[in-house]
């Protein structure tokens, strides 16, 4: 089997397991209110980390590049209460435009 197929199967199987831990292992059990409160903050924490990673991370370094223009344009669209597709298009257009001229 090629390296590509080994990777595809291992990553696929591992991801299925990771995604199932909560819904299969924890389902139908009552959560302690404090635990539920803690879990409600997992979302903001992970999404904020993803914003940092998608904007600044390049492998193991932090860089400022055209992606920052995309996030800035997206932030402007969010501030104007634009629909989600406008945020996405603004992000792509600003990133592509800066990349074109730089």
């Amino acid at each position, binding site marked *: 089997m090629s*390296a*590509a*197929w080994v*990777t*595809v199967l291992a*990553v*696929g199987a*591992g*991801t299925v397991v*990771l*995604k*199932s*831990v*909560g*819904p*299969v292992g*924890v*389902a*139908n*059990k*009552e*959560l302690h209110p*404090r635990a539920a409160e*803690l*879990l*409600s*903050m*997992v*979302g*903001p*924490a*992970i*999404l*904020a*980390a*993803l*914003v*940092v*990673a*998608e904007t*600044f991370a390049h492998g*193991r370094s932090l860089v400022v590049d055209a992606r*920052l*223009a*995309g*996030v800035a*344009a997206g*932030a402007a*669209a969010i501030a104007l209460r634009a629909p*989600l597709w406008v*945020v*996405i*298009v*603004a*992000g*792509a257009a*600003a*990133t*592509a435009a800066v*990349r074109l001229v730089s």
Partner: protein
Amino acid sequence: MRKGLRLAVPLLPAILALGASVGVLARASHFSATAAIVMSATTFAGSSQVAAISLLGAGGGVAAAVVAALLLNARYVPIGITVARSFRGRIWQRLAEAQLVVDESWALAGGGTARFDRRVMLGIGSGLWVAWVGGTAVGALLGGVVSDPSAFGLDGAFAALFLALLVAQLGDRRAVAAALTGAAIAAALTPLTPPGVPIIAATAAVVVGWRRA
């Protein structure tokens, strides 16, 4: 379900395009078109696929590619736990439905809040899955025609998308504190750890929100 499919519509062009660029990238890294499509259908998590494909293509080896991808997807353990109580039925049904949990379907369906709606999540997830696998197929089959996917600014579009999903979750001051701390942890760890680890470590930010309570 229908409400979820409607909510997925604004995301479809970006998901299709990112799926296509993953397909192109996979072909450039010596994946067959079938392998690229099977990966999108089973893994269904963009950043981990990009990480695995680019590491393998850069000669990083199978072990490094698999570990990096699974580290990136380890966030689905805490994400899955936040919505676990909404899942019903037999183990196989829960297992299948759990595969439709991705960052976007989870966040748009109110993941991490009391108003999470499993059916809405399933609708969004199904729509995104079709676009993701379809996009990958297009990219894998046409691979080589598109020379540079980054010219379309997709990476910046996804950063903006995650920002929008984040803002929708900033309901109170504890959420803001958790977000700022999570961002700081991610930035601090990026130079020190392999990709994926900073995002998992950011979940430690909930402790800050806890102490403010």
